[in-house]
């Protein structure tokens, strides 16, 4: 049975297809201004195994022919993310919080805390003993402590987003940057560039600011072992190391592909629903 999870984020969209709960394929694209079109395009990306945003695939995928798959072949489709309500072919939509909680457990069994930092929001989730959401916090009102802040500074410095993390690790001094407001951060970055400061030192300051902010956020729900980071920042080595310095000796567990965690969660919810409706599913005792 095929099920699909589709995560339309504010900056990037992800699509995952599971075959009986096992990963069959996934894909990603940048979210365009037209969500309906974006939703169709990201399905295409998954079916043709394209991850426009990240280059190579990090997870092993079964070597089977899938490029004939269509939306109609899916037993159930669940949408999530900022644009979840607008996906025309989704059977239902589930919040990002639920999907990240579910997806994180699929990648890391026994996870207790999830930090997801996306393009325009960041959230901390505490996972209960039975895998339920015990508590969560969210910041979607302010661009400080989100991927958008990193994009803004990367733009000023003209460093590709995928390289800011590794470049920040080369710094020799950490330049202070506003920890709260991304608009002030942009001004500060421009000023530091004018003063002739090195890009890696400005980036180190940026990562310090974001790490402080998101760690404070996730602390509100409590950080315990296993602490998982999902979303775009999971691929940023500079930020992950800065967060690790702030969590009292705990280690961060990174899913192999942190950006698809929400979409995997959605696809698992789709599987639940498909099994509930399917006559082939085992009878409930």
């Amino acid at each position, binding site marked *: 049975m095929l099920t699909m999870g589709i995560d339309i984020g504010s900056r990037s969209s992800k699509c995952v297809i599971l075959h009986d709960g096992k990963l069959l394929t996934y894909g990603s694209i940048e979210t365009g201004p037209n969500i309906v079109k974006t939703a169709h395009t990201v399905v295409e990306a998954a079916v043709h195994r394209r991850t426009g945003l990240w280059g190579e695939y990090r997870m092993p995928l079964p070597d089977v022919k899938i490029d004939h798959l269509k939306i109609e072949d899916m037993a159930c489709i669940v949408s999530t993310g900022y644009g979840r309500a607008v996906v025309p072919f989704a059977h239902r939509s589930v919040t990002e919080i639920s999907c990240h909680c579910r997806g994180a457990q699929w990648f890391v069994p026994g996870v207790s805390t999830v930090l997801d930092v996306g393009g*325009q929001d960041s959230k901390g989730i505490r996972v209960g003993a039975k895998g339920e959401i015990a508590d969560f916090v969210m910041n979607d*009102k*302010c*661009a400080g402590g989100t991927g958008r802040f990193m994009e*803004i500074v990367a733009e000023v410095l003209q460093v590709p987003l995928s390289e800011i993390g590794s470049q920040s690790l080369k710094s020799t001094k950490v330049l202070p940057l506003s920890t*709260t*407001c991304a*608009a002030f951060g942009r001004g500060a970055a421009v000023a530091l560039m004018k003063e002739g400061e090195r890009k890696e030192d400005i980036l180190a300051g940026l990562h310090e600011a974001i790490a402080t902010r998101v760690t404070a956020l996730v602390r509100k729900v409590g950080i315990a072992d296993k602490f998982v980071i999902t979303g775009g920042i999971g691929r940023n080595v500079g930020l992950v190391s800065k967060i690790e310095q702030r969590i009292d000796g705990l280690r961060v567990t990174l899913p192999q592909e942190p950006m698809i965690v929400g979409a995997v969660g959605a696809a698992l919810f789709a599987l639940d629903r498909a099994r509930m409706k399917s006559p082939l599913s085992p009878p409930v005792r």
Partner: protein
Amino acid sequence: MAVIGIDLGSQSTKVVILEGDAIVGGASLSTGESAETEARMAVQEALRQTGLKREDLKAAVATGTLNVPVTAAVKQRSAASCIATGAYFRFPQARTVLYVGCDSSMAIRMSEDGQVEDSVKNERCAVSSGALLDIVSRMLEIPVEELGPISLQATAPERVSSRCVVFAEGEILSFIHKDPPVPVPDVLAGVNQCIADGLWGMVQKVGVPSELLLCGGLARNVGVVKAIEAHLGKPALVPPQPQYVRALGAALFARQLQQEGGTPC
């Protein structure tokens, strides 16, 4: 006896020359890489207007958001006290002052004799400042001075729901790219409302016992002033050339120094 006040703002450096109770010269220059250079140039420009020489200035006080000492001879005063002093000089009946600059803002409550009683600043968030107008001006390619008058032509202001300048920028962009696009006056009126809402929160924290005075560069935008007045429920006091109030306050401190027998600069 001439004295000078120097205000180092984040975007522009302003100076005011005072002779007795009369403002005889003033200049404003964009703050660039070196605050000190701009300050010297602005002083020269103001001197040129008045026909005075540098030696004629008997005292100088500097203030502003940029915390840089201009020269050792110049005394520093806090931004809050300079705003309050400048505001009190213009309108002694005002008990609350809202100063809004390019990326800083401050609400101050004063005693009846113009002393600062309470103040709040927007250190953490750019939404309660002029930053959004700057962004919109660049986005729509409309000079900042024209934004206010254009916004008054709005018929159905478009609500900006974001409470973050960065997210608001994206939201405003989507208004412009809508099909059909939201009319520019309606976009601007929504922006004014967004800014006024943020600022009103600051004003409420200090309270308005009687009159509210608006100053700083943003007070030149008639649309924002109207949006704040809507919250206030009555007209606000806006001095002429409101962007110079802080520099004026610094000049008044300089006058005081000079009267007390301070050192010439």
